[in-house]
């Protein structure tokens, strides 16, 4: 008794009693809220909608809402029952700590965390033009444009005559084309039909090479642009008289010309960098005890978005 009296006089004890009363009183007053937390399951259209879509494995809220509203009363009842049962079992399982030491859940959580790390990207600074220019300066070679040409040609086949005879015909035709100053659009009135195209507009050097052969390709790109017809140039198939409109050597384009592609590439790099950094930061919090040091790879190898 004396002990209790003595205890009652202790300020620490008094404080404890007051705290207990306050806490208990709050529990009593807000009892409904606590019940809500643990043992209350609210099922509205919102929950049912998500439940339905997860089950159907299709995600189109408008259609799902329509389908939900069309449900017969029996079907709706079944959906509610299913949802309620799932939710109860889920909560009981959590209460029993069944999620601990479960490989499936562990794997799923790792996957989610990994996904989250990707999500950090949304919080990074958006790329500025300076960033893009810097990226471009470092990766210019990747944006190299092939040599391109625009020309029309008049063809003299050597299929049904000798190469020399075809050359004589081509020489004569060249004089005629130049004497009459035949323009690009009227060229198709002259010569014979070629296997591939009459006109080549902004075509790459490789394609020219595949259609006419390498020597033709080299000669064509060596010509200068002009009003006059040039040639004859031999190909695998005969002789060609060429009216050259445009010859662009291979070049590394200005940033402005390829900015959208640079943006996409730089963004992809930023995304993977951000993710790697995020995972590295997480790793830094831990002391990893092993017989060999963890390399930088550990951050990238976590990528499991299969």
């Amino acid at each position, binding site marked *: 008794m004396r002990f209790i009296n003595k205890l009652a006089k202790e300020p620490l004890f008094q404080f404890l009693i007051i705290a207990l009363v306050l806490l208990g009183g709050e529990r009593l007053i807000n009892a409904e809220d606590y019940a809500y937390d643990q043992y209350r399951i609210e099922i509205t259209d919102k929950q049912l909608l998500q439940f339905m879509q997860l089950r159907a494995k*299709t*995600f*189109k809220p408008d*259609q799902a809402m329509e389908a939900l509203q069309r449900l017969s009363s029996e079907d709706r009842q079944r959906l509610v029952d299913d949802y309620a049962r799932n939710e109860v079992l889920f909560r009981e399982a959590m209460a029993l700590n069944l999620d601990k030491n479960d490989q*499936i859940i562990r794997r799923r959580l790792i996957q989610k965390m990994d996904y989250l790390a990707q999500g950090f990207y949304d919080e990074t600074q958006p790329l500025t033009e300076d960033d893009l220019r810097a990226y471009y300066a470092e990766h210019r070679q990747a944006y190299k444009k092939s040599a391109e040409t625009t020309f029309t040609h008049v063809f003299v086949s050597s299929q049904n005559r000798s190469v020399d005879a075809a050359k004589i015909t081509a020489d004569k035709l060249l004089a005629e084309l130049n004497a009459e100053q035949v323009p690009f659009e009227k060229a198709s009135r002259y010569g014979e039909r070629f296997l*591939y195209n009459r006109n080549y507009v902004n075509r790459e050097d490789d394609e020219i090479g595949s259609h006419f052969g390498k020597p033709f390709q080299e000669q064509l790109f060596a010509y200068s642009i002009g009003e006059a017809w040039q040639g004859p140039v031999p190909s695998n198939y005969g002789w060609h008289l060429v009216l050259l409109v445009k010859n662009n050597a291979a070049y590394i384009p200005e940033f402005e010309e390829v900015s959208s592609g640079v943006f996409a590439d730089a963004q992809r790099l930023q995304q993977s960098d951000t993710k790697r950094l995020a995972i590295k930061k997480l790793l830094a919090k831990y002391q990893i005890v092993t017989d060999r040091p963890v390399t930088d790879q550990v951050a990238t190898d976590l990528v499991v*978005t*299969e």
Partner: protein
Amino acid sequence: MKAIAISAGLLLSLSCWANASQAEKPSAPQQTDVYFGDTHLHTSYSFDAFLNNNFSADPDTAFRWAKGQPVIHPYNRARVQIDTPLDFLVVSDHAEMLGVMKAIRNETIEWQDVGWFTSIKRWWAVMALNNALDKDLGRAFFGKFLPKSAAVVGGDPVADVNNNIGSVALFGDTSGTSQGAWQDIVATAELHNEPGVFTSILGWEWSSIPTGANLHRIVITPDGADKANQYIPYGSDQSQYPEDLWQWLDETAQRTDSRFISIPHNSNISKGYMFAETTVKGEAITADYARTRMLWEPVTEVTQIKGDSETHAQFSPQDEFADFETYEHFIQTTAGKTAVSKGDYVRPALKTGLALEQKIGVNPYKFGFIGSTDAHSGLSTAEEGNFWGKMAKDSTPETKAPVLGNPTGADGWDMSASGMAAVWATGNNREAIYAAFKRKETYATSGPRMRVQLFAGWDFPANAETSDNFAAIGYQHGVPMGGDLKGVGLKGGDLVGGAPQFLVRAVKGPVDANLDRVQIVKGWVDASGEQHEQVYNIIWSGDRVLSADGKLPALGNTVDLTSARYTNTIGQAEFAIKWSDPDFEPSQSAFYYARVLQIPTPRNGLYDSLALQLDNPPRGAKTIQERAYTSPVWYTP
């Protein structure tokens, strides 16, 4: 007097036809260009690709390769590159177990509850899978999923007691994993789509193979991610009947506002079921069935790595070019292909279609042609000299055949570096390519990029074939490949009474071998319902002369068998001709398609056998006469 009345009636009915054919005209484009692509390619997401050592070639690798960029080979890790880039590509992984093997191996699988007994089986299977992959025996593990041949030959293969589709469910419901894989395929395709330059098209494979009867279809859609992410690809684990696939396509098209095309392939190993005279269930083909089938399946893949399905000598005994790249292996537990059926090949199928049309009024087999690879390496390789395997593993000379393989099973030496889908489209984009598929304005090649045009009409202007406006004339005065030639010899409403004419132009691929000849293949059904076919040599290189039975002497062969090189000293780079059918019978329905043959070139096995210093490739010919098949034009009286 009576005769006059009859001819007046005839003219009247003919003018009705003329109106009908005119009404169909406006849908045809006037300006098209040819684009080459592959609608059938597997990546590491396909279970069989993964089990055969494709662990790393994902959809991104596939697109980078197709666009011409160097990539890492998934098995031999060499840097590899296509010689001529593609214009379009479909990454079409198997819907069944999509992404599952990869996810199990990488431990990212999402398991569903399957009950304790199945869980134990599954646990065992996962162990076995990992063990097999650790020991490089994935191919043997793949055997678990092979079908058993039927107990009852000729019955409904799906209902057969030996049908073991259940083995696919070994891992329970893995649709969560498949959904993730599909979304990645879709997102990657969207990233790589550059209309006008390179087109990526979304698709997958429905891999129905009940008791080894190959009913596989590739499904493609011209639509994008917004629609494709509303479904998971429909697989044969849901149903093995094509009717159910079409039903799903119909429902999903309506639900998501999507469009689909289903493309059958490897009819050559369908045990006669692909183009049978009945449905798979053995029921009679009805007009409804025929219409539904043609609604979804306007084109068929007729040539690919696992062989060619044009025709077999058994059904085309007069055709010396039949039996091209014939594939001798069913996909099933018991090796060897023991039977050849009429329903396996497309030329007999086109004839069956005409005969069925006579009976039921609708032709269920009125399809156009494409080729595609069906490569499982993530690399669309249809170039014999730059072929990187059917599977990832058979990509090197020493691994072309499995060391401990079944001597009668298929191996890398059987495989043909084939095929290519060519489309005449108004542009290089999803809409235009889809429209070309729907019009059947497509053709198949066994790999090379020969450019083939075909128009059919009644009265083309003189010299149309050598005109610069070849295509414009063709479209104006006729119908392109895949089209319908209607009416009989009408010119400005007057009866001409001639035979149908064909404008054909074939040009060799820019970096490919010369051409040997162009042929027209005709098939028809006579009044008594009997089916016939005839192959006409219509233009050829050199000064060869046709024999009395219409045959040509062989062209020769420039392939040096010690170096696997050829020269273009024989053959011709281009053919252009107007040809008319000398045996035309106006009352008989018929189809016509062009077949273009290249000069002989080295087959992929020759390069490998030389590298191995073998005298002969263990299987397969040393040289190959590559070819193109245009979609047919149909004549209906």
